[in-house]
């Protein structure tokens, strides 16, 4: 170990986890929108 910056690692972990959670949320919203669209198209056909 070289006496690194633990507090900075903690701050970065929090930031990274926040970005990761945000990307997961967008992923979920996009999946939901695709499903809704497919459902609408299916509804129009039938």
């Amino acid at each position, binding site marked *: 170990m*070289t006496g*690194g*910056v*633990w507090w900075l690692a903690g701050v970065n*972990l929090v930031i*990274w*986890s926040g970005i990761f959670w945000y990307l*997961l949320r967008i992923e979920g919203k*996009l999946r939901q929108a695709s499903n809704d*669209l497919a459902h609408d198209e299916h509804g129009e056909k039938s």
Partner: protein
Amino acid sequence: MSRMLRYGLWLWMSAVIVWSLTGAPVAQGFEGLYGESPQTSRIVYFHVPVAIASFIGFLAAGVWSIRYLISRRPSFDRAAVAAVEVGVIFCVLAIVTGAMWAQVQWGAAWNWDPRQTSIVLALLFYLAYLSLRGAIDDSETRARLSSAYASLGLVVSPMMFFILPRMMGPSLHPKPASAEFDPAIGVTLLAAVIGFTAIFFWCQNLRRRQLALASVALEGRRA
């Protein structure tokens, strides 16, 4: 991206963050002009990977653009523009972190160093691509012209990122293969490059899907 891969990426990047800021060796000879701690050189584990990820993204945009020009499938054009948009963000991050480090090491955030200058030129090249897209209303003409432009990036990007900085003369920038770098630094950098490239393509994929949904919605409104 599957659920397993996404959580794997979170773990991978978390390990990279903790290791690069606490365990990985610091490059020697980076005390800074005013005797700052060499710990500041740990910014290299962020600065270099985001620069490389943006370069890979710009190359991918060029490949998708060529595929669009061959097949005329709009999905390739959407993939290319998504790669450029995310690539521009990563490129800005590389420039900003580079300037922060330059302030510590060289005493000024901006020095017109060959590498600083050439990465800004690359950024301007891709900002012009986005401006070009914004200036054309017809979607097919826009896709065709911007794909021709972005495919030039396959030559321009390597030129700006690697060839031009070497041609522009002496640089203050540390050389990647110089003896002052510990091999452990290289391994940490490689792990960070893999992680940031994965984040890049995840973001690009999300943006591409968002553009696809927007185009379907637009067609629905026109019909």
